[in-house]
Structures are given as C-alpha cells and as structure tokens.
C-alpha cells in the first residue's frame, strides 16, 4: 500500500514550524465572526481522532498568552485529514475555522469517527513523523 493521501489542517505558524514543505497560515487569519452552529459536535469529532504522535508539549495560547495549551502538537487523524490536538481547543474557544471540505466531511459522517485499521494508522503515523520531527 502506498503512502496515504492525507490533507493537513490546523498547522498554523504561531504554533511552530512543521515539515513536508507545508505553507503555514496565521491562526489570526482563520477566525470566524460567528460560532459554528454544531461546534460541540465538530469539536467532539476532532477529539475522537486517532492519535498518531504523543507529544510532550506545553505552549502559550496565541490569543491569550497567559493560558497554556497542553500537548497541542500531538497529532490526530481520521485517515483522510491530519490535525494537531489543540485544533479542537482553538475551534471551541476562539472560533478558529476549518476548511469547508473538512467540515463538510465531518457533517457527512454525522460527527462519527470512522473505523480505521491499524495498518493505515501506522502508515499515517509515518507521515506525521515527517511533519513533526
């Protein structure tokens, strides 16, 4: 099986550099004026993602530097998209936006994380390693 075609979300430049030549946007340019109507369900989906890399990490919240976010650079996936663990926090707390096609996929799945076999997740974890280390 070849390398999975993963897409990436939440790799904002304020949260630290990443590999794979990803172009990193500012988190401040990805804030919505209004909250998602289904924000709790979307956040639950993000938190249910399969963990690939367990990072020991403690970083300041760029919106509120007095607050620290723990293990934010831990990497999760649903097998299609790959995101940082702190994405759920920023969506929930600061109305950070998600790409429209990712949001559509989450809603299409009715917020339920699909089953993924261990072989796929192992392959995804190798991509995550390249991204983070």
């Amino acid at each position, binding site marked *: 099986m070849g390398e999975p075609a993963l897409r990436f979300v939440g790799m904002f430049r304020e949260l*630290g550099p990443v590999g794979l030549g990803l172009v990193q946007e500012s988190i401040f340019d990805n*804030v919505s004026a209004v909250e998602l109507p289904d924000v709790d369900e979307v956040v639950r989906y993000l*938190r249910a993602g399969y963990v*690939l*890399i*367990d990072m020991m990490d403690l970083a300041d919240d760029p919106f509120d530097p007095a607050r620290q976010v723990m293990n934010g*650079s831990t990497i999760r996936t649903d097998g299609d998209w790959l995101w940082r663990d702190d994405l*759920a926090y920023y969506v*929930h707390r600061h109305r950070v936006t998600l790409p429209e096609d990712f949001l559509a996929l989450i809603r299409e799945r009715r917020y339920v994380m699909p089953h993924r076999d261990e072989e796929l997740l192992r392959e995804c*974890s190798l991509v995550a390693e390249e991204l983070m280390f």
Partner: protein
Amino acid sequence: MSAAVSVSVLADGVPIDCGGMADGLAGCYGAVPAVGIAAVAVLGGAALAGYTAFAVLFPQVLNALLGVPVTTDLMGSRRDWKDPSTHPHQPTRPPDSQLAGGDPVYHRPGATAIGYDESTMQNFDLVAPEPGYHDVVVHGKRNGMFRPGLIGADGADHPSNYTHPAQIAEAIRGNPHYDGGPVRLVSCHSATVAPDAGVAPPAQQVADALGVTVMAPTNAVGVNRYGPVRQVPRIRNGGQWVTFYPGGGTDG
C-alpha cells in the same frame, strides 16, 4: 395652618419627613443643599461612566498595542467557555505517590512519571530506557518550572500546578527504584529557559538538586503511538538532547 401640617414642620421650618436625596433635590432643605446634592450626583454619574468606558476600552487599547487582531477577545470568543482544568477527572491509573500539590507520581524501575495526561502516560509506557539513566516524564515550561498534566472535565489534557524543580527532584528520590544515578528528562523544553526567566533551565536545577548529570531536550518531545513498544523519544524541529552537570556546564 391646620394642626396636621403644623406637627410635620420643625422649629427652623424644615419638614420632618426630609432626608432622602429626592427631598434634597426637590428643595426640601432649601436651594443650597439641592444644588450640592445635584452636583454630587452629576459628578458620581460622570465618574461611573468614565470607569465603565475605561473598563470596556482599555483591553481594546492593550490589544492594539500588543498587536492582537480586533477579531479576537482575550477572554475568549465563546462566552460560556469554562476552564475544564478546574474540575479534572481523577487518574484512572492509581498513583504510587503524589506531589504536595496533589499531582500523581508513578514509579517503575528506571522511570518516574509526574502527572497523568495522555501524553505523559504514553511516553512513560513507550519510551525505551537509555542505559544508565533514570527517565523522568513530566511537562516542562520555558519559565524554569515544571507543570504536570491532568485530564480535564472535557476529557482533554490540561496543565496542572506550576512545580519547582526541587519538587521534581524530591519525587525522583521518592521512587524506590531510583539508584541515585543520572537522569533523562522526557520533558518538553526542559533544556531551555526564557531569557527573562531569571533562573537556570529546569534540567540544570534538577541536576543541582540531585547532584547528578541530567539529560534534557531543547524542544517538545514525543513518541509514535504506532512505533515499537520501546522507542527513542524524538525532539521537534531539529531539537537536541543536552547534558547538564551539577553546579553548571553542559554538553550537547
């Protein structure tokens, strides 16, 4: 003048039922008190309005000075957001000990973990031992302190109490398997410190407290959940391991 009216007026002509601000403004005490009370009321109102304007506008001025975009809110965009770390879940794995602040401590031969967030537990379980070193898994902070993790009410990892390196050293000594040898901190950023912290890096402070060499990473550190059961922890963004010696001096 009728008897009913005469009993409601004092000898100096001030009605008996005068006393409230409304009476003063209504001229109950004559013209001078009425002007004074009105002035106090106006000044008080102005002061309250000024304070309210300051409280509302000052954070926005601060945001502008600090470069925080106006679309954000330092108190959070979500008004009903409650800090999940104030009502944490209890650790599912029973601890072997705990810090004075209540953070759980876990012992096993060759390793000590402090805190019970998911990454701490995974790194405690998955990291391959470095021969000759006792591993210590706990979150570090660039201000020279440590901060163990917990599981919040939302089920996510959150930071717990700021913890002095001396307490971490005490927790290591408390592990009956610790033989007094060198320590490796599987602890984010523990080989570095912010320039304005005014203290040595957390790893140096632990080395001084224990009187042993301490190896620590310069950045976040982690393991692959689908990697081998015993794996070498990796450091983010080209970070490296630095060895600290008691009293000062580093390699790495």
